[in-house]
């Protein structure tokens, strides 16, 4: 079994710290064990500020003001929701850039309950100007996406959303929509780890499946090319409808129908496993199939 996204991220970041004297990491205890070796080698550039997420993001902003390239990392709800004003003001409003890397996507922490879940993360980050949003679907995609994010810090910030959910295999990554299979009745856009359940769900349906790891900026041109049927299904592993406006904007000049699948808005007060939550939100293969066949009038 290969390493999970978090482990791959820590290893690749540690390598970047060796290569790039301006790269820096800011942590708030989470994953500090994975960076222990890097911290011993580069104590001035691997900073663990304790359980202080506001400070963690602000320190990232301050490092960037000094000309460094900060990578800021912790659990999704604490990175995005708890420190949101710091993201807005200490990065975006200062016009400085960082790579924010979260773990604990949506219901990865199913057993931990609502306090450790933030399926709203991409919707929030989408409201901050200048952020790209990257959602790897497999640990093998993390190194290239991370290097791209750090390598383009002069141009802007990136939010990278890591998950314990992963597709069966890694795919080559590029910024646009990637056609995995072609069909005529609809285009199904599968974001990150949604690709495997989507492929299972539509195996015998006449639809195009397009894979996305970069969702901001959204590949509007690519969607226009693929959406000739006018029917679009968006399958996102975070809050349902997060990218609906991007699809609507891309297709504003032509008639189209959109089905947005994702994590529901209502709080699910149950524990269990990520697979349980996927089923409850209709994001397992059976649930996706139900929604897609109904949308296409096949059931």
């Amino acid at each position: 079994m290969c390493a999970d996204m978090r482990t791959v991220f820590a290893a690749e970041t540690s390598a970047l710290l060796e290569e790039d004297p301006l790269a820096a990491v800011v942590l708030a205890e989470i994953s500090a064990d994975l960076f222990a070796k890097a911290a011993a080698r580069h104590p001035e550039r691997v900073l663990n500020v304790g359980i202080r997420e506001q400070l963690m993001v602000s320190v990232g902003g301050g490092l960037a003001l000094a000309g460094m390239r900060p990578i800021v990392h912790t659990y999704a709800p604490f990175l995005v929701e708890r420190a949101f004003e710091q993201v807005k003001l200490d990065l975006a409003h200062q016009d400085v850039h960082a790579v924010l890397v979260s773990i604990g996507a949506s219901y990865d922490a199913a057993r931990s309950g609502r306090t450790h879940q933030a399926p709203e993360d991409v919707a929030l980050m989408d409201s901050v100007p200048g952020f790209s949003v990257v959602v790897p679907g497999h640990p093998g995609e993390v190194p290239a996406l991370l290097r791209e994010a750090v390598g383009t810090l002069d141009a802007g910030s990136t939010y990278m959303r890591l998950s314990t959910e992963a597709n069966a295999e890694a795919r080559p990554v590029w910024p646009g929509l990637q056609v995995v299979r072609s069909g005529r009745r609809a285009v199904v856009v599968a974001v990150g780890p949604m690709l495997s359940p989507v492929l299972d769900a539509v195996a015998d349906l006449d639809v195009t499946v397009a894979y996305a790891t970069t969702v901001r900026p959204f590949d509007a041109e690519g969607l226009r090319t693929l959406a000739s049927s006018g029917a679009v299904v968006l399958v996102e592993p975070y809050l349902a409808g997060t990218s609906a406006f991007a699809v609507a904007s891309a297709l504003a000049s032509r008639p189209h129908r959109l089905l947005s699948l994702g994590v529901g808005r209502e709080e699910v007060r149950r524990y269990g496993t990520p697979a349980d939550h996927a089923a409850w939100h209709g994001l397992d293969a059976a649930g996706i199939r139900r929604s897609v066949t109904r949308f296409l009038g096949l059931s």
Partner: protein
Amino acid sequence: MTVMTGDEKHGPSATSTLDVLWVLYDQVLRVSPDTAGDPGRDRFLLSKGHGPAAYYAVLAAKGFFPESWLASFGSASSPLGYHPDRSLVPGVEIASGSLGHGLPLGVGLAHGLLARGLSGPRVYVLVGDAELDEGSNNEAIVYAGAVGLPNLTVVAVDNQSSSYGWGPGGIEAHFAVSGWSAMRVPGRDHAALASAFRVTSAPDAGPQLVVATVEGKA
């Protein structure tokens, strides 16, 4: 300052900082319009972005931008807003306004300068006593003291505007218990301020706090 009208709500806030700002820019900070982009310059962060009239006046007096900009303060065509923006105003190091951001940013900036091998420049952050109500400052105070950031000075302008204050020992006790060296001086006394900032330049010291006492809001 009298040419900047319209933000009278923040008048007390603006005038409370005037002497501290003048002493810093006139006697302490190693920064000028010519070195405003130099990596080795001292950094001054106005965390308490409210009432920036005094700040703008001092920057104009020191030549960072023309004094003629001051009269249009807050207008659609002016780069000078009621809260300053680093992207718009030469010499302004951070955009501020929402309280409790400058000190945490200053901690990161101080770290970043050291990580780049720049041990010469110092980071000065001006906060207000009521601004310290914001919990984000507490995160920064405890952390910076614990790691002993040597290139960070906080100047807290104390016009007793915090509703609950800091109790016995005042602001300086709160910092001192976290490992900062701390002193209090009269905030209108230029010689006392300059001497306090010189004391804080001891090379082996951790982070430094100067509390500048000024008269309370009327």
